[in-house]
């Protein structure tokens, strides 16, 4: 059989579309659910927000009186046993009639199959998760309950407080080091550089226990400074290596003429080398930012499980899974609060993002 070019392209598009569709379902379901009412989440699937045909309750009727369980019952021209009425009987007009309750006390409910969509959206989950204030919620049976808010805003601020310095500090230190290794001559240069590159192969797991011991001794555990320095240490080999590759490749004559004009190393570094290195700095910055923002292990250890005050988002959400694992209205909204920053970075800086992540493949 000969496949024409056109049908081949169609097949390619179809298969790829299918894969993309499957890839999107998990996150889409979570996103949609985060805007649905807590009761709706439990009682109907998130996919019911799309138009679909379903049985909808259209009316409630009184039950005929004087019937007994053992005799067939005739309603609207259809005769069936009580058991059949209990499970529902299809009428001539296509609707379905169900006897709810007992033979003496009950009601008849009429269902019709219709095209419908469950478009009942709310921002309440986000208010509850972010705002942190106590919320009064109407329960389905008319009463009211008060729920304690989750104040994820605090963790959000903590995540920013941890992530921004943990990104900037290693870049600054690595850029100085990369410049030093590229354009300065000193004793031990080659050896020190090799040691730094060798550190790329060390998985950070190896460092956790000894560093934690040190931190407890000098009072750094649970502090922001402690976690900044930890992320700096773990990010430095990659940062130095990448920036060295870039800075040592800068055009020699530009730096030479600056030296001839009498500029000092620190002037050349801040005025010339840093601005010229922006593409490399940006790629590493994005990689490191996302790495730290999404990190769970390092935060778990250096901030500490019990330290609720400095808890970052990943810790908070992991804790929510443990303590309120069935409260999907909170988990869905909370998860999206934690993803919003990476998603913005992703969409705004996609090009740097990809090069950054490609470079990150050599992080130990």
């Amino acid at each position, binding site marked *: 059989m000969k496949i024409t070019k056109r049908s081949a392209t169609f097949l390619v598009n179809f298969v790829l579309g299918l894969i993309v569709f499957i890839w999107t379902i*998990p996150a889409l379901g979570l996103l949609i659910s985060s805007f649905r009412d807590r009761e709706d989440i439990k009682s109907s699937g998130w996919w019911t927000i799309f138009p679909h045909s379903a049985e909808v309750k259209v009316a409630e009727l009184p039950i005929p009186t004087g019937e007994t369980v053992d005799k067939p019952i005739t309603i609207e021209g259809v005769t069936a046993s009580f058991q059949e009425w209990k499970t529902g009987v299809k009428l001539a007009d296509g609707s379905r009639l169900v006897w709810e309750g007992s033979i003496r006390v009950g009601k008849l409910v009429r269902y019709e199959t219709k095209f419908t969509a469950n478009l009942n959206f709310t921002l309440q989950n986000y208010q509850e998760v972010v705002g942190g204030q106590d919320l009064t919620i109407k329960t389905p049976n008319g009463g009211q309950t008060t729920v304690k808010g989750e104040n994820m805003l605090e963790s959000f601020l903590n995540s920013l407080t941890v992530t921004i310095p943990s990104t900037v500090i290693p870049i600054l230190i690595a850029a100085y080091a990369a410049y030093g290794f590229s354009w300065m001559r000193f004793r031990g240069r080659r050896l020190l550089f090799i040691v730094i590159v060798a550190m790329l192969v060390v998985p950070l797991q190896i460092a956790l226990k000894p560093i934690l011991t040190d931190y407890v001794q000098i009072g750094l555990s649970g502090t922001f400074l402690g976690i900044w320095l930890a992320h700096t240490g773990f990010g430095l080999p990659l940062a130095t290596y990448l920036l060295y590759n870039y800075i040592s490749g800068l055009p020699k004559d530009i730096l030479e003429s600056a*030296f001839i004009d009498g500029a000092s190393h620190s002037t050349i570094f801040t005025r010339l080398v840093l601005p010229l290195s922006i593409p490399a700095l940006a790629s590493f910055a994005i990689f490191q930012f996302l790495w730290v923002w999404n990190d769970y292990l390092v935060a778990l250890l250096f901030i500490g499980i019990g330290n609720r005050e400095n808890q970052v988002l990943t810790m908070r959400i992991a804790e929510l899974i443990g303590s309120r694992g069935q409260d999907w209205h909170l988990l869905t909204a909370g998860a999206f609060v934690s993803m919003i920053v990476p998603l913005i970075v992703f969409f705004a800086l996609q090009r740097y993002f990809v090069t950054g992540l490609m470079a990150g493949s050599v992080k130990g």
Partner: protein
Amino acid sequence: MEQTTAYSATSSGGGEFDRRRFMLAVAGLVAAFIGLYGGFVFLRDSEAPKIITAIFAIIWGVAGIGALFFVANYAVESLPPKWTTRIQPYIFVGPAVVLLAWYLAGPTLRTFVLSLYNETGTMFVGLDNYRDVFTQRIMIEAWSNNIYWLVLGTTTTVGLGLLIAILADRSNFERVAKSFIFLPMAISMVGAGVIWKFVFDINPNIGVVNAVVASSGNPPQDWLRLVQPANNIFLIMVMVWMQTGFAMVLISAAIKGIPEDLLEAARVDGATEFGVFVNIIIPGIAPTLLTVTTTVIIFTLKVFDIVMVMTGGQFGTEVIGVRFYRELFTTGNQGVGSAIAIILLLAVSPVMIYNLWQFSKRQTF
């Protein structure tokens, strides 16, 4: 390193030793340290609103490091030029070297030493911990699960990445498709854990998988807990979902790097699409495939967050990464935990060295 030339600063403020400037710089250095320490104490003890401490902390941390570099350079450039040339390089590379010595080089040795001692670090036990790592029942479970992760996870990720890269290359919506596949790379593994716990939820009104199962008339299952050992596969799916985008991007770049006229020539000579794929594309992207594979292998060896968040390593899903955490930081044995870390280093380093070697050949920026 050979091709670069090193320069020495010829002048800094006229070349004479400026005593006043030097004293000023030293005073600045002392002031910077005092200021930084004051900020540290403030942050540790402050009861100020969160937003204020957050902003203060960010400025303090970032500006503090910048100030230290600035003041140190200012001081050293006020020295006689001979001394400036001698000392300044160490101000540039010193902080990086010191931090790496403290955070990576030292701990590697210290962890190795810990791995030779008992759980409290008081008695030398030789290689007993290493024997335990390979013989304890729970460790054997963890290792065999990691082998699942390594084999299934890596082949699926790389295979799907290759498939999608090839499809995208020939489709009409390449950019959009690649963005969607790549998107999960942006989010945390904890977030991905939430997303997939939702997918596998036991309530057929919540979990898509159970909704499908229920609509075909079967009872819903507790996939992540009770469906053993297949629950490992469901956890691996989370990793595949996250990492395929990475594999796809690298492979796609490699495919685009194959010269078009080479492909055309083969087609003109009568090669089928399949023949072109096997004989030209695959050999052309082989180094990239290997890099992607090694990177994903490292990921599978170190996997922690996904398992920790979704099952906590219970229900037969234990992996080395979680075991390591439990042995070292909860109720476990720090000797065994350290031994795991050392084994991880030994397992990862050859792969990393290969990656680095490949990386140095590739133009990144």
